[in-house]
């Protein structure tokens, strides 16, 4: 039983799940790279369009500020000291891991 459960454990939820930038919307699992790509290639300009096309932002809504940053051509993360490290999950102010 223990082994079965252990194999089901996902990797860190905000770690880069195979794509640059990591997860932007934690409700749907849509990554920053997917939203960035849509903005670049299809000229998407509003949060509503991103929501409609990718599903990102259709859950709790906490990622809308990150979507707005990508729409403005910025990284989704604001780079503050309470951003979470994709490697260890610590806030950046205390993170000492190699992923920082």
């Amino acid at each position, binding site marked *: 039983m223990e082994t079965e459960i252990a194999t089901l454990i996902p990797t860190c939820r905000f770690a880069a799940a195979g794509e640059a930038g990591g997860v932007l919307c934690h409700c749907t699992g849509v990554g920053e790279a997917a939203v960035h790509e849509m903005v670049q290639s299809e000229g998407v300009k509003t949060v509503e369009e991103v929501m409609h096309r990718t599903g990102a932002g259709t859950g709790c809504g906490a990622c809308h500020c990150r979507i707005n940053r990508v729409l403005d051509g910025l990284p989704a993360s604001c780079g503050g000291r309470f951003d979470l490290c994709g490697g260890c*999950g610590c806030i950046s102010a205390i993170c000492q891991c190699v992923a920082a």
Partner: protein
Amino acid sequence: MKGNQEVIDALNAGLTIELTAINQYFICSKMCADWGVNKLAKHFYAESIEEMKHAEEVIDRILYLEGIPEIARYDKILVGDNPEQQIKDSHTLECKGVATYNEAIQLCLEVKDAGTRELMERMVVESEESVDWAETQFDMIKMVGLEKYLAQQFGESAGE
């Protein structure tokens, strides 16, 4: 009341730890109950409920400050395959909580948000108590050995 965005980010960082802890303690409780380590199961169950109450307070504060709670964001949920590892994993998570809230308290002092600071200070104290509990278990295991320690943890009641 409109709050400082960095304070809201700090509260959300704390909320991520609380939400992770709810789930981590809960599965550990259920696994310990399955193994018959009932006293430990009961402890983990109580911790899980306590973390839910913490999450409630943090969410209430974020909403009060007109922020959006990050309710879908979790840290890695560590599920140890034996009781000793589960205690180590809970120690790791609680230490992260202490460090995060201490950093957040510093921010609250800087931006003069005494209300959030008061909440964070209570969270730190309770996380420290959980860290201390885990360290006490490590001491006991070292003193009497893992087998004798576990023998003390069987108990009668289930994890809820």
